[in-house]
């Protein structure tokens, strides 16, 4: 790895890769790294994606983070967001405070829902997202507190819960990627349990296992997460001129 490539660059590339092949849908990123991933994917290998300004508009140009010189190509107020969610024409990358091996996620609360030890965001749009369209996750600090055997509140459906709801739900439900500061994961196993897809440069498989609170599927040869090429890095620096991505992971 070239010395001027950082962990944040690797993570944004992984985020962008999760949108590969999505075509003409709303690539929605919650937070700096997911948003950069969506914008980078569109600026490079997935040009038909729709990306938003995080407020109420689809932005047609390659807008840097925090930039205001936007070409508005569509209006997407919240009720149109919900319509798009339920239509399936969306892939969101969001956070998770807890995730289990089937991909059930929790952003809602820690401890019992009735009287939580810590009230977090609540379920927000997680139930509707996960049952309607592709949902990926970005987790800035992987640990056994986050990668848990059982989540305290299911704000996003994992594969086991989706399977119980029948064929239609299973057809729409998809968790393409989980990206952390250590590695990239998917659920492309026969049992739809989490699999280690690649480790970031300098991270060992043992590091990942030590920070996972459940049994991971691990192949015999785990590749290293790919670095951005020169074009991608130049584009990334243009999309994030102030380097906000470096504050997210270290």
């Amino acid at each position, binding site marked *: 790895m070239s010395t001027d490539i950082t962990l944040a660059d690797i993570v944004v590339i992984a985020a962008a890769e999760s949108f590969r092949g999505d075509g003409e849908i709303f690539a929605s990123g919650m937070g700096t790294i997911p948003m950069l991933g969506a914008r980078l994917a569109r600026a490079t290998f997935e040009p038909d994606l729709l990306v938003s300004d995080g407020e109420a508009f689809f932005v047609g140009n390659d807008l840097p983070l925090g930039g205001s010189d936007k070409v508005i190509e569509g209006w997407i107020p*919240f009720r149109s967001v919900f319509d798009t969610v339920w239509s399936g024409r969306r892939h969101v990358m969001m956070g998770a405070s807890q995730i289990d091996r089937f991909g059930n996620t929790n952003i809602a609360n820690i401890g019992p*829902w009735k009287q939580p030890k810590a*009230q977090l*965001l*609540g379920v927000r749009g997680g139930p509707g997202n996960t049952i309607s369209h592709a949902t990926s996750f970005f987790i800035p600090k992987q640990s056994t507190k986050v990668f848990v055997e059982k989540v305290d509140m299911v*704000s996003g459906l994992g594969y086991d819960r989706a399977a119980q*709801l029948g064929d239609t739900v299973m057809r729409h439900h998809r968790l393409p990627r989980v990206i952390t500061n250590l590695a990239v994961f998917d659920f492309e196993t026969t049992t739809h349990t989490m699999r280690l897809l690649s480790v970031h440069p300098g991270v060992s498989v043992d590091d990942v296992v030590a920070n996972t609170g459940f049994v991971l599927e691990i192949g015999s040869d785990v590749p290293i997460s790919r670095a951005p090429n020169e074009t991608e890095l130049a584009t990334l620096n243009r999309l994030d001129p102030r380097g906000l991505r470096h504050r997210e992971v270290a």
Partner: protein
Amino acid sequence: MATDKRTTLDSAVATLESGMTLGIGGWGSRRKPMSLVRALLRTDIKDLTVVSYGGPDVGLLCAAGRVKKLIYGFVSLDSIALEPHFRSARQNATVAECVEYDEGMLQWALYAGSLRLPFLPTRAGLGSGVVDVNPSLKTVVSPYADAEELLAVPAIRLDAAFVHLNRSDIRGNAQFLGPDLYFDDLFLGACEPGRRFLSCEKIVTTEQMLQEASFHTLRINRSMVDGVIESPNGAHFTLCTPDYERDEKFQAAYVKAAGDTTEWEAFQNRFLSGTEADYQNAVLQWRKETSS
């Protein structure tokens, strides 16, 4: 003679009673009818069921102990993710009953209410923690060949609704000038006639509304509104684009004060102990003191 629906904040909230179900428009810390909420805090009304895509409206009502039941899609201050009073209300279980919905489910509940339907079907929520913690939610099976089982989101009907818009005429034809109506039309639609209150930045003539923006912004008509209140800066400290953006500094001060009993008491004394005019003056004074 056409009906002039102009009223005052205090006359509006005086029509509410303890135990009622109140819907509050806006979204998070965006275009919230805060002056109506502040007026409500000046009354003795309590035991409310509050329905909201919540922000500081929910926070303030929880902190003042006015909420018996809370039905929410979320409660957040947007630029500050967690609403401090809501957080402590949940962690100390000071609100007797909470109903937590997926964001889209809450829209469906209000839409069903506004269409006088008993429920609307959706997949959103199925299989999630929402059904685990709301055991009264039922499903419905499609009567067609697919026979799919869907969640039947029960309609919400409101006794009172508060929304804050950018412009209105004296009859309640109102206009949003920002990027999003949010679900204000559904809050008004789901409410029984009589207590549908709309505050606005400015009351204008009907003709003036189309001079400012296109007809697409006229999403609230007078059949949906019982009372109109001109309340400049009425959404403060939440945003009311394009009239003003969120007062981030004040919001941060609110959050800081909420974290400490003594500081919160001082905040209440300074900002929430008088009339709306007192509040606005206190904010101006605070701005002067903190701008140096």
